[in-house]
């Protein structure tokens, strides 16, 4: 991990609709993604985690705040040259491998569609070499290039989705629940693959997920998001060992653990947003409780949470 963030998001807001119907899905989110790091955004449906990913991909415009890639502002309008670069360097992997591949195209075309769009090859020979390299890298055979998506299993299709992203030689991969739709045995294969690529290629992942327990294994840092705001961000192990925000605690208690004895003794914590006393003058702010461990709290809460349990 280098000290320079490859991506930094500051005070990001995303709004849908306008006037009285306006809804703010992302309400002032800030975080940094470092080179070679996996940062996970964890939240429930409707928390805005996918919207953040899409705002970085420039699918949704940011209503306020900034998104910087290598120090350059990329929220809002950018030049054509910059646009090209971003489309290439920030890639996305999707949740459902059954829905994210063009059923009528061969794997060869699916993997090289981006290469065609950006003319990233001199001749046919180089294109084929790039496709082959991408397929090999995700553990698929080069001869699969002439097949159609329906000939593959879910795990293989997810690998094709990853190969398609890799062919562009990205620096950042935004993975939106890439393993949620996969079976347990297939899930392990894809997790290992993502970890290996990170190591070998120095990729940075923004990993969007709803399941805290799976995220622990792959993340360097975890950010918990609730209703469009980050409530806690910490190194993965620290978040599990010393969760501070009551919402984080509720999420942790809700995830079923594959251990019957532990499950039997576990008590479910339910998060009640009304438990906060945020009167005027005691509004919560994004505070650093200990090095690298941030939490959304007012001063009184921060005192309670750091000294208490």
């Amino acid at each position, binding site marked *: 991990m280098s000290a320079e963030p490859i991506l930094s998001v500051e005070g990001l807001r995303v709004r849908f609709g306008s006037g009285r119907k306006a809804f703010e899905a992302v309400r002032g989110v800030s975080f940094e993604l470092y080179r070679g790091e996996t940062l996970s955004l964890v939240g*429930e*449906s409707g928390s805005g985690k996918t919207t953040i990913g899409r705002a970085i991909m420039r699918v949704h415009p940011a209503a306020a705040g900034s998104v910087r890639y290598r120090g350059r502002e990329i929220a809002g309008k950018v030049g054509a040259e910059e646009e090209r670069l971003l489309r290439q360097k920030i890639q996305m992997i999707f949740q459902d491998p059954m829905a994210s591949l063009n059923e009528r195209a061969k794997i060869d075309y699916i993997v090289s569609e981006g290469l065609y769009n950006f003319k990233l090859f001199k001749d046919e020979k180089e294109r084929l070499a790039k496709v082959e390299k991408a397929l090999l890298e995700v553990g698929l055979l080069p001869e699969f290039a002439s097949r159609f998506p329906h000939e593959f*299993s*879910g*795990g*293989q299709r997810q690998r094709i989705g990853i190969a398609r992203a890799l062919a562009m030689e990205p620096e950042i991969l935004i993975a939106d629940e890439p393993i949620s739709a996969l*079976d*347990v*045995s*297939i*899930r*392990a*294969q894809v*997790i*290992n693959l993502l*970890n290996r690529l990170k190591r070998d290629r120095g990729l940075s992942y923004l990993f969007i997920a*709803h*399941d*805290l*327990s*799976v995220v*622990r*294994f*792959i993340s360097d840092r975890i950010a918990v998001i609730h209703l469009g705001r980050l409530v806690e961000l910490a190194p*993965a*192990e620290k978040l599990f060992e010393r969760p501070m925000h009551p919402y984080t605690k*509720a*999420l942790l*208690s*809700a*995830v*079923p*653990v*594959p*251990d*019957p*004895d*532990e*499950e039997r003794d576990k008590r*479910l914590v*339910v*998060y009640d947003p009304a438990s906060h006393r945020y009167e005027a003058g005691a509004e919560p702010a994004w505070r650093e409780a200990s090095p690298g461990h941030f939490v959304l709290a007012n001063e009184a809460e921060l005192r309670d949470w750091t000294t208490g349990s």
Partner: protein
Amino acid sequence: MTHSIDGAPRAPGEVLLSAEDLVIGFSLRGRKLTAVRRASLTLRAGETLAVVGESGSGKSVLAKSLLGMLDRNGRIESGRVMYRGVDLAGFKTEREWLTVRGGRVAMVFQDPMTALNPLKTVGEQIREAAALHRGLDKAASRALALEMLGRVGISEPGRRYAQFPHEFSGGMRQRAVIAAAIACGPEILICDEPTTALDVTIQAQILDLIKGLQRDLGMSVLFITHDLGVVAKMADRIAVMYAGQVVEEGLSRELFYDPRHPYTWALLASLPQLGVKGEELFAIKGTPPSLFKEIRGDAFAPRNPMALKVDFEREPPFFDISPTHRAKTWLLDPRAPAMEPPDTVKRLKARIAGAARAAGVAAEAPAAGAAEAPAAVPEGPKPKARRARAKNGKESER
């Protein structure tokens, strides 16, 4: 009201529903797919049995067949489904099935969006179910529906009764579906991935609800899921399915802390929750076998790096490990070489053995006892195993 099936109450622990050597086939575009291949299950009064498996393992098909809800191109080819002395597999008409479905055995599906009729109010749908299966009049069934809405944790039942499904959130919809199921007063509740479509915090609440209802109403629950975390929370007993067969079954603690089938090992070892950060996760190679083809030997053998030669040739019988725990693998044959489970599984075992010692509960019988003596793999189950082999051997010759 007349029922072809008598409704005498059962003692706890008695077998309520059992599937015996079920074979279920589907015809798909001229080809035959055998989704369930001689699977057997028993559900006892008052217990929760979890059926775990990956997609395509046949767990949902098996559950649906117990209620006569197979898709039209599927049918039970052989085997029996015994419930209160009647073989349900012999049922031909919807009329026959309706004597069981709903009133006796109710089902909750994965997707609460599609389980409810969008054009009718939620309350009406629960009332109808109660009226149909309990023969209640309008006022009585309405009162029952209101009571059930409250019972499943829906606040202001009076107002919610008149609302439509689209006015309910996903979690609330699933509560309403559960209300409709229990309004019929079933003794068995089949839940097919009831929380897979829900958020984790909502999932935890629904699971607690199902547990509470089971305890209070004395129901038996057959819980179908792929999530081993959910299994650990819910199950008294577990059956692991692979390629249309039950490959291991036992008490929850036996399955988690002393698993014996290589597939169960692999399933546990590939969980990221149990993995060690920075290390490769144990991954099962390949994909499940095609059920269009006949499977020879042990279905898991091609993906099992520890497979024995016999695994590719002969299907293993069940070997008993304890009176409640059995597994269908040649590894338990006394002639098989001793095989070590993956490290993750050993760690689980060690953790529980350590915890048991620390708490001084040696009396925490079968699982803890077995966990402390991992060397018992070859010797322990011998006599029973032989018996089991002899019995099953005969059966497979038929």
